[in-house]
């Protein structure tokens, strides 16, 4: 598992460095981003998960089993910093009316007490509407600073959307973790 992630993380960095060399004439970030598109937006960001799972604390782990989808303790929301789209006219996995899913995301690995598995959750910001302001959550299981960007949540993940306005955040299962 760690190998896969290592490779993808490496691919991400190599792509950025390639872009950097190509953009030596200062062609601007937007172009750099579109060059990165196929690797970066196309998935390399999703599986960054370079953490020792043994660090997990039970307290922070699984949320509350009886939490609703409009509460921060709901199991999928284990590394979600933002407003729950389920409180804003969307749902756990759907953006509210008028908002577009972010093109890039950070991920969490959250434990589902119901089936005992760990899932990789993509936290897509929903973009292009003013901030929702309801059900603000700030959970940080395996969250890391921006030098581990794919698991960093103190940044606007609508950054690659136009417009890049942040509205709320959905939590989408993209896979079960290898150790699940």
């Amino acid at each position, binding site marked *: 598992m760690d190998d896969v992630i290592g490779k993808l993380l490496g691919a991400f960095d190599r792509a950025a460095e390639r872009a950097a060399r190509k953009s030596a004439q200062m062609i601007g970030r937007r172009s750099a981003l579109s060059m990165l598109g196929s690797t970066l*937006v196309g998935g390399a960001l999703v599986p960054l998960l370079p953490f020792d799972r043994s660090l997990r604390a039970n307290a922070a782990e699984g949320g509350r089993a009886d939490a609703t989808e409009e509460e921060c303790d709901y199991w999928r929301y284990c590394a979600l910093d933002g407003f729950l789209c389920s409180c804003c006219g969307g749902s756990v996995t759907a*953006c509210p*009316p008028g908002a577009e899913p972010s093109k890039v995301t950070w991920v969490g690995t959250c434990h589902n007490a119901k*089936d005992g598995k760990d899932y990789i959750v993509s936290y*897509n910001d929903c973009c292009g509407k003013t901030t929702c302001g309801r059900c603000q959550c700030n959970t940080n299981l395996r969250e890391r600073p921006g030098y581990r960007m794919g698991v960093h949540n103190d940044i606007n993940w609508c950054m690659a959307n136009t417009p890049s306005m942040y509205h709320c955040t959905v939590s989408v*299962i*993209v896979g079960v973790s290898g150790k699940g």
Partner: protein
Amino acid sequence: MMRSAIMLAGLLAAQACAAQELAPEKIGKTVLGDFERVYVADVVLPHMVDGRVYVLDVDLNLKGMMESGFAGMMLAAPQRGQVYVPTSFYERLTRGARTDVVQVFDAHTLTVTDEIPIAAARAQALTYRNLFQASSDGTTLFIQDATPATSIDVLDVASRRRFEVQNPGCYGIYPSLTNPLRFSTLCGGGTVGSYTINEAHDGAARKTSAKLFDATNDPWFTHAEHDVDSYLFVSYKGTIARVSLEDETAKLLDSADVAAGAPGWAPGGFQPFAYDPKSGVAYVLMHGDAAEGSHKNPSAEIWSYDVKGKKLLARSPAAGLTSITISPSDPSALFAINPVESKIQRFAVDPQTRRVAKTKEIKLGESAALIEVSK
């Protein structure tokens, strides 16, 4: 994004135990259907640049929101599947050039599908219903201006042509219920001015009514309700006046005193009453210890008042409300803003006793002032 995420999920799933696990998901978008909406306009006083109009269903589930910027207004146009939200934008949020437009929101996607430029003179005011209205046929929008000299912009939606009529000393827009070329305004002398748009659709002549109310001692709130063929106004002290705005000159048809026999009680709030045309019952936000200056006080009770029979039918406890409205499709459903608790609340009317009881609520809104129910 989702495609590759799913590819990835496949990759990961191959390494994981297979049974019973949750499947990878797609991110959805939401489009609203054709349900009856409760619109709540919130100017968000502590952050006025970021006003919004919340969209709820009649069970008070929040379904979405529309950006209303700095001191925006709102008016639903359900027959067009649109909501008009005029507002002001500045080049640099709070500074730089000001641009005023009517944002046209699609009522299903809640996105801005069109923008109609208007004069940078519209009243940047609290969201009162009668500062932004449409003609009876929906083809014309009326926008109250204040610089602070007052005028009304008359905007033809299809052609985007507009002209301005002055309404000095007057404020508020009350379109005729039957004549799309006519609208009225309340004036500080206690009269009503009625405008009739000319055939060229580039101006409007104004006729002034007799003195209908005492703006000094017992002013009318600018909020008004429709009956089938007339408007109802309520005064600070509780007089409900029925006024016809259908002719060239406004006429007082009738009046009744909600607070008769209840000294110390008066209506209050920003949208202080709702009216059910079928039963002829008005629901009025009333507070006790009424005095000069208490006319925006939140309610202690909702009074159910038979306007035609001039009879108080019921007094129901309902604290903290400053705006109330009624469902056009279900006159047993009232919706109100409770700014004291930052809530939107639903009340049920008992069809026999006309007593009112709270049935639902949602924590929502910071400075909400206008609540409207519309298909």
